[in-house]
């Protein structure tokens, strides 16, 4: 004979569920505070509340979770929670040989994969002391700058979408899609190209790539200008973006910012000029800077960079030498024990790899310096004091890719 204890509330009693879930709703971690900062943040003041943005919020650009402490609509404090996309790429690379490691670094910043290949490839080439053929270097610069344009075009669309504009993202996808198709013709993949190899590139320029590039180049400037008129001359957009999330150059340096986010504060630091690599010294291009350091400046600076990238592509096509695209290398690479560091200028900033070889065919240690992660640490400075609506604008203007942040 079975009896049920009716006095105990059953598990589907809404009150019981409420008690269990209230912690989740309040975004408070289920453990006691571990640091002073945590204890301070997770204590609510008068009239304040927590709101949990992410990891599935529509505009956190992946799986970032930001716990916002709000007073009405005003952000008082934030606590970013990372690690939802952690795959242990650095450790994986230590268990792969030098060719395989490039495949692991490829999807870090999946919007601009070529740059994630470029930096480790350069580091490994320094370890192996390989001379890369000049044609391969030119092809690297050409395809890299194309990828930079694709990344910045996508940034423009996302940024507008976070500010509530529906159309720019689809217009900018026209550019990005054409570039992606072009790179697919060159590399065989649309997104994770795995095109750069130690000692060169995987294949020479082919007919389809060149014809697509030619027809795109003839109308690219015009189309990009058309996209820009949709936002740059829009009073609503400019008024929202101007003066928002301002950071000065000293603070930006202290936060280790690089790339467009640093140049928007007025410092003309660009790895392509500061520590020249590849064939960039032979190319003529400007480093656009802006002095305001706000959201609008970061956006406009990226748009200026698109034009410079178009200049570089044009020069690459004219100066492209003949010759092989791959250096002669043994199949199994065993570099001498040593260390190498290679930094490149990605679309988001300085992307660097530090590799240590112990003489075997696998890297002993690989450290990847990702600009998205570095830039994300400044949201704690930029977001508080703004409104909820602006948190997404600030974050979009820093242009982080969560694949690179969580590695």
């Amino acid at each position: 004979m079975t009896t049920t204890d009716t006095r105990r509330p059953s598990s589907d009693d809404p009150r019981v569920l409420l008690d269990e879930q209230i912690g989740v709703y309040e975004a408070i971690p289920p453990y006691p505070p571990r640091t002073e900062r945590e204890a301070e943040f997770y204590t609510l003041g008068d009239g304040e509340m927590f709101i949990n943005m992410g990891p599935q919020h529509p505009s956190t650009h992946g799986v970032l979770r930001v716990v916002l402490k709000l007073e009405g609509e005003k952000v008082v404090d934030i606590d970013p929670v990372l690690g939802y996309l952690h795959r242990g790429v650095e450790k994986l690379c230590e268990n792969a040989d030098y060719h395989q490691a490039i495949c692991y670094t490829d999807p870090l910043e999946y919007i601009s994969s070529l740059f994630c290949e470029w930096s480790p490839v350069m580091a490994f080439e320094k370890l192996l002391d390989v001379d890369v053929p000049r044609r391969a270097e030119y092809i690297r610069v050409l395809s890299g700058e194309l990828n930079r344009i694709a990344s910045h075009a996508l940034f423009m669309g996302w940024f507008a979408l976070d500010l509530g504009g529906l159309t720019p993202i689809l217009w900018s996808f026209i550019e990005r899609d054409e570039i992606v198709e072009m790179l697919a013709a060159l590399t065989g993949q649309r997104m994770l190209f795995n095109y750069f190899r130690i000692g060169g590139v995987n294949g020479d320029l082919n007919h389809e790539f060149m014809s697509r590039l030619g027809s795109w180049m003839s109308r690219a400037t015009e189309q990009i200008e058309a996209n820009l008129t949709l936002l740059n001359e829009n009073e609503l957009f400019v008024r929202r973006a101007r003066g928002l999330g301002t950071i000065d150059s000293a603070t930006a340096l202290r936060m280790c910012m690089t790339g467009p986010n640093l140049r928007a504060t007025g410092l003309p630091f660009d790895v392509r000029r500061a520590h020249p690599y590849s064939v960039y010294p032979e190319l003529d291009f400007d480093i656009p800077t802006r002095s305001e350091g706000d959201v609008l400046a970061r956006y406009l600076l990226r748009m200026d960079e698109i034009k410079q990238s178009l200049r570089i592509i044009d020069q690459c096509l004219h100066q492209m030498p003949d010759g092989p695209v791959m250096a002669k290398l043994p199949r199994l690479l065993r570099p001498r024990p040593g260390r190498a560091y290679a930094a490149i200028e990605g679309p988001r900033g300085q992307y660097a790899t530090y590799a240590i070889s112990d003489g075997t065919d696998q890297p002993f240690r690989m450290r990847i310096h990702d600009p998205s992660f570095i830039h994300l640490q400044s949201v704690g400075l930029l977001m508080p004091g703004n409104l909820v609506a602006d948190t997404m604008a600030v974050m979009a203007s820093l242009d982080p890719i969560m694949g690179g942040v969580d590695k």
Partner: protein
Amino acid sequence: MSRAWGRLTLPGKVIFTLVPILIVLTAGLIVTIALLGGLILEILVANVGIVRFVAAVLILLLLAPPSAFIIIYMEMKIIALMNLRLGPDRVGPWGTLLSTVHGLKVLMKEDFTPTGADRIVFTWAPIVVFLSAVMGAMVIPFAPGLIAQDLNIGILYFFAVGGLTVVGLLMAGWASFNKYSLLGGLRSAAQMVSYEIPLTLSVVGLLLLAGTMSLSQIVENQGPWFTDWYVFQQPLGFVIFFIAATAEANRTPFDLTEADSEIVAGFATEYSGMRFGFFFFAEYINVFIVSALIVTLFLGGWQAPFPFPEIALALDPGSLGIGLLIVAAIAPVVGTLLLAAPFYLLRSSTPWWQALIAGFLLFNVVAGGALFALAFIGLDFVSGLVWFLGKTYAFVFLFVWMRGTLPRIRIDQLMGFAWKWLLPASLLNLFVTAAALVVVDALGS
């Protein structure tokens, strides 16, 4: 019996219960009409005002979802074309049935209430929002004589009912037990309360000119030429009203209440199924009604832009007598054959039946067009309805266009704009209008 009943599925049980009830009811109805038909008719005739009102309300309630479907389809297709996409093109011709299918989908989805929500308020919020949207349509004159209730304080009623929407949105935001909903609800309250003031004040100048608050009277004042439309006498009022009405309808760039990139879906975050559908319909009905009100107040409502020359119909159908019947019987056959002939004769590969079908369809188009033209010329309310809907949908298109182009405004900019710019501007408009009226009166006397 009870075993057989137990083996029935749920729809079977429903049918077995409903069919006998319906039969009994129908029989009762027939008997009632047969016995008391004359009496019922007398009562209806005696209370024709009430009957007309009930019928009008029913018609408006029934027409609300289809008009929302049309606007939803318009929005999907127009924004798609602006985004250089194709948009809906699978369901129905050119995807026209997609929004209807969306409506059916919403009906069939699971409708759940989140834990911790205030069930009663949560359930009633969408109904309040939907009803306040539909009730606004009661006083809008669609055509001469085609108005649900010609209130002499029509515009006041409209603003009063429009204010109810805030209550519904606040209810939804508060009852959902979700902070995104709460933010959306409070944003909508702040926004709508702020924008009601310039919205109402911008019309006061027009009311001074019109001397009446009845919407049908306001429309009649704006004739017969398009220069008599109030937009030319109240340009500032028109601009303020348009901006404030955009905010009232929660459209881009003022769609802060459901800003998807900031607060997920605002007050509608926790809603699903038909309750969400009510919010969705209410939004698009609001767009229609706000456009209709702009047209009614400032652009002459159902008035044509210029007076048409009177066309006397030479043919009086009544004079034909029995001939009318013969024409009605013969015309389709002859017309179909005449229109089918070119298809059959010009291409030898066309089979006769295909030519007939083509001729039949073409005849339908021609006859429908001719009947419509006759009605447009001969019947006031048809031409009025055509002009009214044409102007209204032009404004609906404008709202959709703005959604495709503009980004969203921030909440502090939104409030600042309402209180610092729109309110003084509408007061200025009122002052200038009143002063002008006084001067004109003084000069006239």
